[in-house]
């Protein structure tokens, strides 16, 4: 089964990685701290997509909508309605989950590519509303300078907040994937008809999964506000959805942490390659092609397979 695959012998990796991430801001410059926080945000968005894409086999092509709605939900609650940021942080994900429920209820009647196409259309509708409703959403300009509580106002503060929330979300998602609900979801991905024949309410399961994924994407959107203090319509544009999808494929969409790795690669690539050339997407495209040709299960999928091989060798070939 596609899993975290850092169990057993490798389980010490997780706490060590976490401690390293806790120490990083003390040794890194502000720029790199900001970059890491951005990786967590993008990674969380990609992992929330992977919940339905990798584990559920649902072709959610326009996932950025929920990321954007989460960000706008929080930003508008704080700037337009004047509530405390903490309330805004709750409103964002809940609003994203609600939009996901509405869109999901409409789309879940279809499957595979038809689901994806309808989802893109509905998502673009949400984008158009945000883009055009100048008086409320700021239209093209977006919303800037969202004020944050002092505790998380600094780069380091926002980094730690992002790290802790992302870690909490990952644990929650891991538990969901490992629960009977998660198994049923993977069963539906394998064969929806068969799942129905063992008593699984396929459409309801898919809808619940979509709402959960929407919620976590909303959390990622809120974290973006925390890191960047702004929200803009491009966060809901379909090109960003594509980017999130590529993160999943790049890192390994059949692994739990793959999308996070994909996000790290994409963010790093965008940041560093774009200093050399404005055609950095060309580099990105070439890398993606190479990955698809040589590592069809993504980078982490490949690493996992190698680990398994080594493990098998070490245990005398016993699987």
């Amino acid at each position, binding site marked *: *089964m*596609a899993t975290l695959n850092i169990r057993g012998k490798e389980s010490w990796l997780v706490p060590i990685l976490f401690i390293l991430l806790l120490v990083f801001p003390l040794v890194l410059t502000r720029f790199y701290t900001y970059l890491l926080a951005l990786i967590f945000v993008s990674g969380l968005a990609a992992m929330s997509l992977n919940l339905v894409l990798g584990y559920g086999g649902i072709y959610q092509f326009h996932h950025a909508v929920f990321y954007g709605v989460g960000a706008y939900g929080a930003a508008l609650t704080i700037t337009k309605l004047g509530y405390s940021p903490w309330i805004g942080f709750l409103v964002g994900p809940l609003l994203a989950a609600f939009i996901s429920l509405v869109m999901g209820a409409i789309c879940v009647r279809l499957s595979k590519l038809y689901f994806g196409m309808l989802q893109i259309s509905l998502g673009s509708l949400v984008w158009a509303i945000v883009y055009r409703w100048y008086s409320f959403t700021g239209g093209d300009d977006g919303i800037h300078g969202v004020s944050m509580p002092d505790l998380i106002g600094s780069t380091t503060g926002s980094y730690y907040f992002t790290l802790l929330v992302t870690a909490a979300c990952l644990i929650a998602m891991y538990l969901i994937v490992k629960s*009977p609900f998660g*198994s*049923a979801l*993977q*069963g539906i*991905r*394998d*064969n929806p*008809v*068969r*799942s*129905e*024949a*063992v*008593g*699984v*309410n*396929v459409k309801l399961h898919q809808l619940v999964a979509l709402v959960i994924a929407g919620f976590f994407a909303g959390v990622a959107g809120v974290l973006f506000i925390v890191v960047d203090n702004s929200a803009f319509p491009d966060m809901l544009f379909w090109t960003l959805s594509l980017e999130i999808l590529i993160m999943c494929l790049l890192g390994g969409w059949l692994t739990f942490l793959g999308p996070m790795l994909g996000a790290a690669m994409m963010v790093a690539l965008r940041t560093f390659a774009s200093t050399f050339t404005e055609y950095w997407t060309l580099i990105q495209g070439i890398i993606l092609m190479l990955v698809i040709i040589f590592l069809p299960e993504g980078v982490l999928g490949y690493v996992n397979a190698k680990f398994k091989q080594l493990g098998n060798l070490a245990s005398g070939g016993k*699987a």
Partner: protein
Amino acid sequence: MLSVNGIHTFYGLSHILFDVSLTVSQGEIVGLLGRNGAGKSTTMRSIMGLTPPRQGTITFKAEPITRQKAFLLVRRGIAYVPDDRRVFADLSVDDNLEITFRRNEDWNKERVYDLFPVLGEIKSRRGGNLSGGEQQMLAVGRALMSSPELLLLDEPTEGLAPLIVRDLEKQILKLRETGISILLSEQNVKSALKLISRVYVIDNGRIRFEGSLADFEANEEIKKKYLMI
């Protein structure tokens, strides 16, 4: 318990089942025998709501279930083991059993492992890595997890080694002792005759014979014409 009355089923424009009727009573194993392509699996799929009939009615425990969704039928007490016995390849044996809807506590994983001790030894193995016989046992076990009153078994012995077929027969007989009714579709007549008490013979989408096991055994013409034995 189950009563199928004159169903007509289509795949697109192709008319597959013609006026098929059959009944299964409490606690009996009924055989639906026929050659490849006779309409056995389509009958099963029609009952299970996966390929709903266009005409005719199906009742279960005196309540109409025609064209009901498969997952609702599971909740009413019908379980289905499809002929291609595809288990969920990416899930472990344990998880394959766990995702089934549980109507009550009559059946649980331990009871399934008691019935199929082989499965108990490979709980954490991926479904896709099981042998044909193990997959079939898992498919039956998975169906049992919903504590069904009626089990639809579609060609359980297809493609299995004779030794494993014999094992499976024993376990199916054990199931009957627990009071589960079974509708068993089979091409392998020899194996089926050891298990069933009543026979329907289906050919070209029509029921050609219906009767007790003794009647069937005595009827050489039917056996020769439709089952080639």
